[in-house]
């Protein structure tokens, strides 16, 4: 029995079809990332899974229980933890009182251990909490009854980097114990370390589900190379290079490639004032090229080696660009 089964889930709000025939499965012990740009419909799926709203078509099961049947949904919720995108508690009570309510209804076997890791100020009224502290309290309540499945809507928003790492370590350890997780995010880099598999949602449709390792291979890198020469996009005419754009600067004046020949005096005019930086710029033209690369890294390194590099920056491509390239309406044609 899988942790989550979603089959042909459609949610029509009248003006917007927030989910359109979404189907996926999260296996037991799997950490599944539900990704997509803001407004793609991630929260709609999660709210339907939690039974907050009913699907227009299709079905969903949590731990084998049909979420549209309240008795079954309640049985599932005893074993499910949940963190909303913007967790909100009764503001007039302290964190401890809020947790006491949750404990009374669903149990709190792991409360103390979780409070050691995520440390919300328990004796303060929640109205005085920062966003980060509310998020910590939300994480504690999501895990305190030792659930089999946890559904987290944008769990890392509002957490500082240190706590985010602690959260990642925690999820890793829980997965080892057999916990199943569905977590949504619009930032792939934040969740790729903890997800086994991701589903990518765009405009209400699930465009793909794949293993993180495979996705990362396909999403490519964002490469920014600064070359000590006047080159054009042809310099990086390699398989796997997409959307290459180059910008040449000669002397200390910022000019685009096409204008590079017709103003030879500009650099001289600022020689004295610019000191060393100006002197370096005057040694010759500098070209900054930026492109997304999805090919073999060795081929890229060989090609870069043909140039004298002033700077090189290689980072993971932002998810939004990945969507456009591989799953966008225009991008679909040139993704070969």
């Amino acid at each position: 029995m899988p942790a989550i089964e979603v089959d042909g889930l459609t949610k029509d709000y009248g003006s917007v079809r927030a989910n359109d025939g979404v189907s996926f499965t999260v296996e037991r012990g799997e950490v599944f990332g539900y990704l997509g740009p803001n407004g793609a419909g991630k929260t709609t799926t999660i709210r339907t899974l939690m039974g907050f709203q009913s699907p227009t078509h299709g079905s969903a099961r949590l731990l084998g229980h049909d979420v549209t049947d309240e008795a079954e949904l309640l049985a599932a919720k005893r074993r499910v933890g949940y963190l909303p995108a913007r967790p909100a508690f009764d503001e007039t009570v302290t964190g401890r009182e809020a947790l006491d309510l949750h404990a009374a209804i669903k149990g709190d076997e792991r409360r103390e251990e979780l409070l050691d890791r995520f440390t919300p100020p328990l004796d303060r009224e929640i109205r005085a909490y920062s966003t980060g502290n509310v998020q910590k309290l939300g994480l504690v309540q999501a895990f305190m009854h030792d659930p089999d499945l946890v559904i987290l809507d944008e769990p890392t928003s509002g957490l500082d980097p240190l706590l985010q790492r602690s959260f990642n370590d925690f999820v890793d350890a829980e997965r080892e114990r057999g916990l199943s997780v569905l977590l949504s995010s619009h930032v792939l880099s934040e969740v790729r370390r903890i997800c086994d598999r991701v589903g990518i949602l765009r405009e209400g449709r699930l465009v793909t589900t794949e293993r993180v390792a495979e996705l990362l291979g396909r999403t490519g890198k964002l490469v920014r190379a600064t070359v000590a020469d006047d080159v054009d996009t042809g310099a990086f005419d390699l398989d796997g290079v997409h959307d290459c754009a180059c910008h040449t600067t000669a002397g200390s004046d910022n000019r685009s490639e096409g204008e590079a020949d017709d103003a030879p005096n500009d650099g001289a005019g600022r020689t004295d004032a610019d000191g060393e930086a100006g002197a370096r710029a005057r040694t010759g033209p500098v070209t900054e090229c930026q492109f997304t690369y999805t090919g073999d890294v060795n081929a890229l390194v060989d090609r870069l080696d043909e140039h004298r590099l002033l700077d090189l920056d290689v980072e993971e491509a932002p998810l939004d660009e990945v969507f456009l390239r591989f799953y966008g309406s225009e991008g679909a044609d040139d993704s070969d």
Partner: protein
Amino acid sequence: MTDLARFEARQRVRGAAVAAAALGGFALVYVFVYPTFADSLGADIDRLMEAYPEALSKAFGVESLASMEGFLASELYTFAWMLLVGLYFGYAGGSLVAADVEHGRIDMLLSLPISRARIVVEKFAALLVPLTALSVVVPAVVWAGTAAVGHPVDAADLLALHLLSIPYLLICGAVGLVASVVFDRASHAERASLGALAGLFFAESLLTGTDYAAAGAVAPSRYLDPNAVLLDGEYAVGDAALLLAAAGILLALAVGLFRRKDIE
């Protein structure tokens, strides 16, 4: 089993104490003002009543001001208790669910293994805290106060009036509760509830004695008459049972609506 109700009830303790103190104080003022009022007007006191515009005396149930009982029935019980306290419960009922939906707190509640019906019923049950506080403090103050100023009100009548008014106040809260599951904003639910309750209260009093009196039958205020209880010792138990049943129907309606509601 009743964890949510107990949690919600604790949140209401302070508000209930404030409301009970305020209304108790209000009642004391009435009680202590009455002897001066009665002495200065003497036998002419009911002539003053005749000088009231008819609609006004009907609205506030003025039947006789010649006794402490008649004075309290109109000034304290019809005006302050039935209208103001009734609106207080309508207002409190209006925020029960809608405020949680508006501020996103409902997600956290719905994620718990607790049915939607329980959420509605247990939240409504928390209104028993202010209801109990007011129903204990106000009669105690009135009883002790009227005895102190030498115009004692019959304790049995007073107790009966407060028991009979419990279904009345419950129905006011239930009207608010229905608005609270219909609207997604507390302010909208509160306004709808206050508008409905105030409208029904005044419509009923204005329609009484006209050809349209039957239309006032839907107003809760038709079924509670402080004058009859305090002046004549008549306890309309059947009317109170009717109110209680209607409150139960409204509660069931709220549960039904909330169970079908999409929380977006």
